[in-house]
């Protein structure tokens, strides 16, 4: 049979390696958490499983991405393949949007419905009987259980670090766009400059986020176990921070590839996918800045 135009790879060891890495990661993480929650200390078998899984996953993914880059540069991908990757990345980002939607939904539900009900609002205010003294306010400094589950003493002021981080992240979305324009004009030096700046802005963002967390834990009493305010705060900002870290790492890899001379003005979907992801992370932050910090 004549070979198809659409590249169909031969059988591969990469996916099974990824599956093995993932199960190591999952089973190891489960064991580690159960180990420490049941009072276990030090290293046990799950820790080795977890790190073995992580190592396998990292090395397989390194090989997988290398192979895809090699195939792409080897000219095996046609325009149709390029579109498959575009659809794939687009729908992946949509799935990420829905992941964050679950946490935003939890935040809105607690603030608009569950909290007021605990405080006795509405004709279904039965839950008010649980803690009759509880008065709902947001941020929730006093939890329903009162002294048994102390709330935060204060929360993060949006107009200091969060505002700065907003400026940093929005600027980084602009700089990555400059880098894209430079790539299309094939001005490699400018791409390297703007992309490096983007990664640095991302890294500085993560740094300030860590500073903020340290402040929350050490000075404000705002922790994961300080009730629902801390829960939603750390869940949303934490997952966002993880995404910024991943996004910055992806852009860093793209930066290395630019230096090595990869990409052409016409064909650079790897770059674009990273930029899409970065813009998505940026949009999530704007949502966070409004709904978690300001309002």
């Amino acid at each position, binding site marked *: 049979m004549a070979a198809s135009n659409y590249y*169909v*790879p031969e*059988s591969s060891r*990469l996916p099974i390696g990824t599956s093995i890495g993932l199960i190591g990661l*999952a089973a190891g993480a*489960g064991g580690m958490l159960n180990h420490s929650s049941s009072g276990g200390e030090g290293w046990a078998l799950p820790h080795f499983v977890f790190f073995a899984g992580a190592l396998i996953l990292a090395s397989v993914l390194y090989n997988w991405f290398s192979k895809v880059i090699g195939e792409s540069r*080897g000219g095996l991908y046609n325009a149709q393949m390029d579109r498959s990757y575009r659809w794939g990345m687009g729908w992946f980002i949509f799935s990420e949007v829905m992941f964050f939607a679950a946490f935003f939904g*939890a935040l809105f539900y607690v603030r608009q419905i569950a909290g007021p009900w605990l405080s006795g609002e509405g004709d279904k205010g039965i839950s008010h009987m649980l803690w009759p003294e509880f008065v709902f306010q947001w941020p929730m400094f006093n939890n329903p259980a009162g002294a048994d589950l102390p709330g935060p003493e204060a929360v993060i002021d949006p107009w200091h670090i969060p505002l700065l981080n907003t400026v940093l992240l929005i600027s980084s979305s602009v700089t990555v766009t400059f880098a894209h324009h430079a790539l299309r004009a094939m001005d490699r030096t400018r791409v390297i400059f703007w992309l490096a700046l983007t990664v640095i802005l991302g890294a500085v963002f993560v740094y300030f986020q860590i500073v903020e967390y340290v402040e929350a834990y050490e000075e404000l009493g705002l922790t994961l176990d300080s009730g629902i305010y801390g*829960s939603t705060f750390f869940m949303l900002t934490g997952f966002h921070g993880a995404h910024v870290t991943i996004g910055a790492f992806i852009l860093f890899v793209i930066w290395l590839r630019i230096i090595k001379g990869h990409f052409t003005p016409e064909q650079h979907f790897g770059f674009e996918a990273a930029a899409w992801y970065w813009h998505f992370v940026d949009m999530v932050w704007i949502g966070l800045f409004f709904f978690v910090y300001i309002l």
Partner: protein
Amino acid sequence: MMTSATTLHEDHGHHGPAKGLMRWVLTTNHKDIGTLYLWFAFTMLLIGGSMALIIRLELFQPGMQLIEPEFFNQMTTMHGLVMVFGAIMPAFVGMANWLVPMMVGAPDMALPRMNNLSFWILPFAFGMLILTLFSEAGAPNFGWTFYAPLSTTYAPSSVTYFIFGVHLMGISSIMGAINIIATILNLRAPGMTLMKMPLFVWTWLITAYLLIAVMPVLAGVVTMMLMDIHFGTSFFNAAGGGDPVLFQHVFWFFGHPEVYIMILPAFGIVSQIIPTFARKPLFGYSSMVYATASIAFLSFIVWAHHMFTVGLPLATELFFMYATMLIAIPTGVKVFNWVSTMFNGSMTFETPMLFAVAFVILFTIGGFSGLMLAIAPADFQYHDTYFVVAHFHYVLVPGALFAIIAGVYYWIPKWCGRYYNETLGKWHFWLSFVGVNVTFFPMHFVGLAGMPRRIPDYALQFADFNAVASIGAFIFGLSQILFLYIVIDAIRNGKKATDEVWEGTEGLEWTLPSPAPYHSFSEPPEVK
């Protein structure tokens, strides 16, 4: 083959399966992966089915006889999880793998290596989940809906493995769905416009969209559980300002579209089969497409009908009640179209058609009991009774599962190049049909009379119907062994199939030889 994974420039002229076990581990071929999915789903069907039989044995008569209540809870939980995430969903993905590239005229799936990854995550994830049965703490015991605080404050330690298992299944489903969407949107043959696609492809396109939209929400809710259990957060803990009802909202925002994820591909399969054996084109093709899309849209705004008794405001109950009832309209359109397709057709009743016709009738019964449950004030009576169990088993067993079996009988000559034994197929159908109804129909009665679900013991007045249901369950369960035999017999000794397989079949998959070649369409066919 072992070196081909590591060398960059393989010999692309080489086309054909590799030899031995590693063929299945390393494959990037959509047919191999489809086969893996289907065998995996069948294995899970037998495992989940055995759990159901343990449940039915315990419920054969009132009183505690066989197993401990704790183990009973593990069985109901694992039965649900294994069947939903291990049997029904992977079976449909396997169908999509086999059929979508052939139906749209593609060489393979859009992203073949990711396709392999989507599959091979599953055996590991389910291996981990099922192994918890043998752990000291026992398997998850909080029901497949894992409501907090049962699944957080009061959960056995295996819940942590359950959470990570769900994460893995979610990763698998999302990647599988992305692959299917990319294949459908990007790899269609020239001339295959969207409104010329076979309905199975359409229903899977919409199903894949639902998967990508809600599997991350499931990941979100189990992540919140994980944080509550191990990191002291208060998402589902009212003492810290959270709310256990929040769990139900987030879970059912996933859970209701999930219900349609398990039935829309079944609609697609039945819409392929009925026209063939009625020897008429499908009645109302475009209305079928719009009805599918409407059902998918509505699935996002009906989730709280699972929660009528949890204490929702009146306006909320009314909204979700009416929104739920609206679903009856597009579903009714579908049933009407299937019946109209058969009307005045020259019908014959080969095994796939028997299962498809049974699907239409029995799924409709499940739909009607769903309509009864949608009535909020009535649901206060039905909630958490066996009526609910009867309802969702009618849509999932003679619904989704019958459609899968129908699809296997319908396409297996194309897959293997051999027909199954028609006489045995008919035996399989009638045993399954009788078994399913004997099992699940009495559950309506005990449910309306007030028998609660998920309880290992019950009041004496429910004894007769429960004994009947248990007998039906064993008839149904054991007849699936016959199905296994029929499939193996077809693969080994079946009569050679023609390329057309059935008289007057339409669609690209029937233009390929039987068995279909390893690579479907290396050159895209022209569709007029």
